[in-house]
């Protein structure tokens, strides 16, 4: 089956610049709240950028759908939606504040948010329903879902993983933000049998590819190169807290905001050049 080409050219250099800007914007907002899940937002940023700016068809009568199933990474989605003009600067200024309309987890009904997530293990099931409706109606549209490795420990994810290929939902493209961390520590130590993920996913009937999740070019190419005869999972190996040295691989940055001094240090690092 031929995979439709993306609606636009995906410029990887532009993506790199955007992701630096996104990180700085998330850091800026972090100074207005005590916590905002910064680590998991930074780990999935390149994948979200690639989806929104490279893969998704965002206009026309049946635009593609994006669900951030790892809802705690919402800051990554909010800054993308701000860049696209779907959320405003004022919306982000009121993040988690009275009178605002965005907060820790994506809320259905907010512009650009197509499902309420935050409780892990819900996004893929809802995506299956959307993809099934489109398939039955003969609508050419893709549903993109981003999950976390901690999330994949939920039984509901594996229910949906088993079901999607049975329903031949080739219009479903999922992403795994494999940053090897969950709230209380390193996934590979807490649940070593979670690995290798790719074998399990393909055993469930999915097509899967594994790349460096911070390499937008690799993410983009892996999705574009899929055969597309079954649902597809892109496993992105990522770094929690990616881009700020003192945050990388440190569980504390799952949630908390940097102090003013830490904030300045993070900005300097991001200004200092490309991501390592």
């Amino acid at each position, binding site marked *: 089956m031929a995979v439709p080409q993306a609606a636009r050219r995906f410029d990887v250099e532009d993506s790199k610049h955007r992701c630096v800007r996104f990180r700085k914007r998330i850091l800026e907002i972090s100074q207005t709240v005590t916590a905002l899940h910064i680590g998991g937002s930074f780990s999935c940023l390149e994948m979200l950028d690639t989806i929104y700016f490279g893969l998704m068809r965002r206009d026309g009568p049946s635009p593609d759908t994006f669900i951030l199933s790892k809802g705690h990474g919402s800051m990554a989605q909010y800054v993308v939606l701000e860049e696209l003009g779907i959320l405003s600067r004022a919306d982000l200024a009121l993040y988690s504040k009275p009178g605002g309309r965005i907060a820790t987890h994506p809320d259905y009904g907010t512009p650009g948010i197509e499902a*309420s997530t935050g*409780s892990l293990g*819900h996004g893929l099931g809802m995506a299956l*329903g*959307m993809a099934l409706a489109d398939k039955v109606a003969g609508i050419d549209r893709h549903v993109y879902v981003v999950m976390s490795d901690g999330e994949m420990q939920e039984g509901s994810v594996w229910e949906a993983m088993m079901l999607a290929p049975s329903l031949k939902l080739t219009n479903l493209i999922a992403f795994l933000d494999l940053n090897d961390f969950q709230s209380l520590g390193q996934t590979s130590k807490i649940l070593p049998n979670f690995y290798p993920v790719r074998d399990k996913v393909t055993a469930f009937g999915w097509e899967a590819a594994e790349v460096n999740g911070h390499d937008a070019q690799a993410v983009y190419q892996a999705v574009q190169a899929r055969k597309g005869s079954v649902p597809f999972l892109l496993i992105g190996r990522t770094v929690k807290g990616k881009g700020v040295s003192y945050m990388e691989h440190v569980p504390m940055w799952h949630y908390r905001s940097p102090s003013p001094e830490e904030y300045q240090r993070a900005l300097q690092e991001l200004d200092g050049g490309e991501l390592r």
Partner: protein
Amino acid sequence: MRDAFARALYQFAKQDPRIFIIVADISPAGSMAQFRTEFPERFVNVGVAEQSMIGMCAGLAMRGCRPFAYTIATFSIYRPFEYVRDDLCYQNLPVTVVGIGGGVAYSTLGGTHHAQEDIAMMSALPNMSIVAPCDPRETEAAVGACVRHGGPVYLRLGKAGEPDLTANALEPFQFGKLRLLKEGSDVCLLSYGPMTALAFEVAARLEAEGCSVAVMTCPTLKPLDTEGLVRVLRRFHTVVVVEEHSERGGLAVQVKALAWESGASCRLETFSLKDAFIHFFGTQRQMWGEHGLTADAIYTRIRA
């Protein structure tokens, strides 16, 4: 009732391409065959995977479909409770979750298959509506209400073989309204679901003694017809609630609360399932009896 449900859903699905049925490996096989044959793409068996059943229904509804999730009541709402809450109620989506075997209908299958707290649980969820028809005919009308309703509904059904109780009903089924099945002036017996049959039996015994007894159903447990209930509490000198649900959080306690709030002066007697897991196996009637719910017991207390 499950056959009536399947027949009604098929009739609506013929006219309305938005209707899907997503089952978790439980389905009224014979009566659903026509739906499966004619609309195979709108009948999906997700396997024994209730969380995915509910999640998928949410996704379908987000695309404008009108999905029905279907399995045994304990599995349709207890197992995937958080999916019902977050995916359906929090997002306020038009999905009907059908629970077969509400109450203790699966009377030989043990407590794992008894939904005796389901109305309490679903009542506590914002945006959720609850419909519990009393017989096959009321089930068919209820399916139409579910298709038309704009939010989540828990459709609590019995099983199979329920008698027709509404052929001579004095009022039609209306979503959100009490329904007068039999007129009377002294006592009002108020019930819902298959246990309404018991209310009719008690009514017959009381009428044989010259008492005038009305029988009403309350097929919509949420939103409750509070105005209708207050009128009932004012009109009759004795109001009796008979329900196949735990004494915690069902219709009985809600009627008691309304009686207090409305300053009712009638006599109010309620009969519910016990707040207990009863390790008993027998017919559904016998199971009701183990919970103290027999026509004799109800009659005796009303006459006391």
